[in-house]
């Protein structure tokens, strides 16, 4: 196993009865990165990270965290990985401060609870019961609990689901700060925007399989079938002028707009040709391929709509 991988998942498979939660997942997480696991609900994301955390026994395949089997080396693994679980709550009446104090007592070398509260902006609600915290505060407390053991890896599962846009933005900044403090992060999400903004590398999982694994830019590139630009020109222009350019695949009209598709050199060739003819394009639009387009191209459907 290469030394530089903190987490190695190899041909992981996990079924619950007749349901295949994870079919065949392989991925590696490098130290210091924010690694995204992206996919629609029910894709197998949570089962994958639960297997990494050692909460599930794989039916097949291997999981190694810092070279250790997370099912067998519980003591080391639980100190190494801090976990924020989806749908896991605290007792209603426990105060924020008490929860941190309690979880600090679980670890041999915990972080300072007061400092962590301060860092996560929870000092003002330290004596507030868990049930009375806002959604964003609950999530920040659960991040604090994931960090209280001074872990090397933090697993954050559906961290911003149910948060309003401002709280979501704030949480993103927090995740970046945590990474900057030296913690490797495995981020599970079904929000394209979140993965694109935060992650260094992303594994797209669908139906228990890894559909793609790359940087956000790499995923966009691999999904980009063609470039598409549209524009208006002064005067008249015959389609054959554009079709003669090597980068152009197709030319179409949309009212007075001309829509041209082609390869990566499309924009430059079209603009240069039109400028040379004294017909510089106006109102030019280039269509940006997004990670959502990438998901559509790779998984065959839209991500955001898939679970609604």
């Amino acid at each position, binding site marked *: 196993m290469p030394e530089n991988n903190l987490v190695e998942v190899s041909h992981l498979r996990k079924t619950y009865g007749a349901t295949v939660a994870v079919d065949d997942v392989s991925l590696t997480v490098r130290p210091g990165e924010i690694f995204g696991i992206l996919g629609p609900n029910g894709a197998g994301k949570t089962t994958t990270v639960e297997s990494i*955390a*050692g*909460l599930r026994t794989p039916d097949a395949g291997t999981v190694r965290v810092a070279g250790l089997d997370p099912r067998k080396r*519980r*003591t080391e693994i*639980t*100190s190494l*990985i801090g*976990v924020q*679980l989806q*749908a*896991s*709550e*605290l*007792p209603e*009446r*426990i105060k924020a401060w*008490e929860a941190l*104090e*309690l*979880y600090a*007592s*679980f*670890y*041999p070398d915990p972080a300072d609870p007061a400092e962590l509260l301060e860092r996560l902006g929870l000092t003002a609600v330290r004596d507030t019961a868990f049930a009375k915290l806002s959604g964003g505060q609950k999530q920040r407390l659960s991040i604090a*609990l994931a960090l209280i*053991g001074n872990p090397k890896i933090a697993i954050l599962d559906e961290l911003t689901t149910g948060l309003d846009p401002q709280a979501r933005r704030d949480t993103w900044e927090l995740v970046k700060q945590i990474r900057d403090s030296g913690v490797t992060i495995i981020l599970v999400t079904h929000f394209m925007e979140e993965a694109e903004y935060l992650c260094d590398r992303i594994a797209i999982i669908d139906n228990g399989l890894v559909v793609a694994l790359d940087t956000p830019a790499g995923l966009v590139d691999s999904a980009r079938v063609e470039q598409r630009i549209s524009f208006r020109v002064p005067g008249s222009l015959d389609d054959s002028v554009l079709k003669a350019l090597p980068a152009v695949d197709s030319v179409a009209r949309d009212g007075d707009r001309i829509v041209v598709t082609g390869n990566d050199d499309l924009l430059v060739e079209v603009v240069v040709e039109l400028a040379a003819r004294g017909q510089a394009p106006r109102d030019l639009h280039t269509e940006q391929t997004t990670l959502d387009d990438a998901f559509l191209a790779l998984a065959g459907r839209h991500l955001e709509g898939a679970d609604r």
Partner: protein
Amino acid sequence: MSQTLTLTRIESKLFVREWTTLFFVFVLPIGLLTIFSLMDDGSGSSDGIPASFLPTMAIGIGVGILGMTTLPMILAGYREKGVLRRMSTTPVRPVKLLIAQLLLHLAAGVVVIALIVGLGTLAFGFELPGSPVPFVLSALLYTVAQLAIGVLIAGLVPTAKGASIVGNILFFPSMFFAGVWTPGDLMPESIRWLRDITPMGAGMTSMQDAWAGQWPGLVHLAALVTATVACVVLAARFFRWE
């Protein structure tokens, strides 16, 4: 060890913040003892009802609620809400939370027993238990048996609501079989054997015997031990952490 202590301390704080629990475990038994003591016209025991029926009934009910509803509701709720699963991602084994809850409920049971005995003797003119050691033994065996029942309910029922329903379904027949409504000779002879061997009946009867200055009957003590062992064995077999 210090983890278990921290857990016990914080779980105790959560326990005393739950006022419905405090009401049913502490206030209700004291209220029953008070009301029925005030209603007693002082004509002395009759119908073969032991003098200590009222305080042992109050203990039986308070400790019974601790074991049959409070403990299983908390444990099943923690599992239902993922508290136990969250804990299993830390170096602490969730069994320490179970131990903390048992310690806490045992302590609450001791408080119930002390409150009832104290109030009964100081305010309502009951004698102190005639055989202190057998009384303490009976009271503790009864408490442990009820807690074992609670762990078994929590092991078999997946949700807090379900645990509460099952606990109540068990609790009311337990009171009936313990003779709460038909004390002493008022209970039909044909079903008195149920009072001898059901945990609440055996617990109350053995506490009454010790209060009267005798060693409790072996049948009652054996019934309490049997119930405890059976529940613990079954709970160990069926308890699920998630």
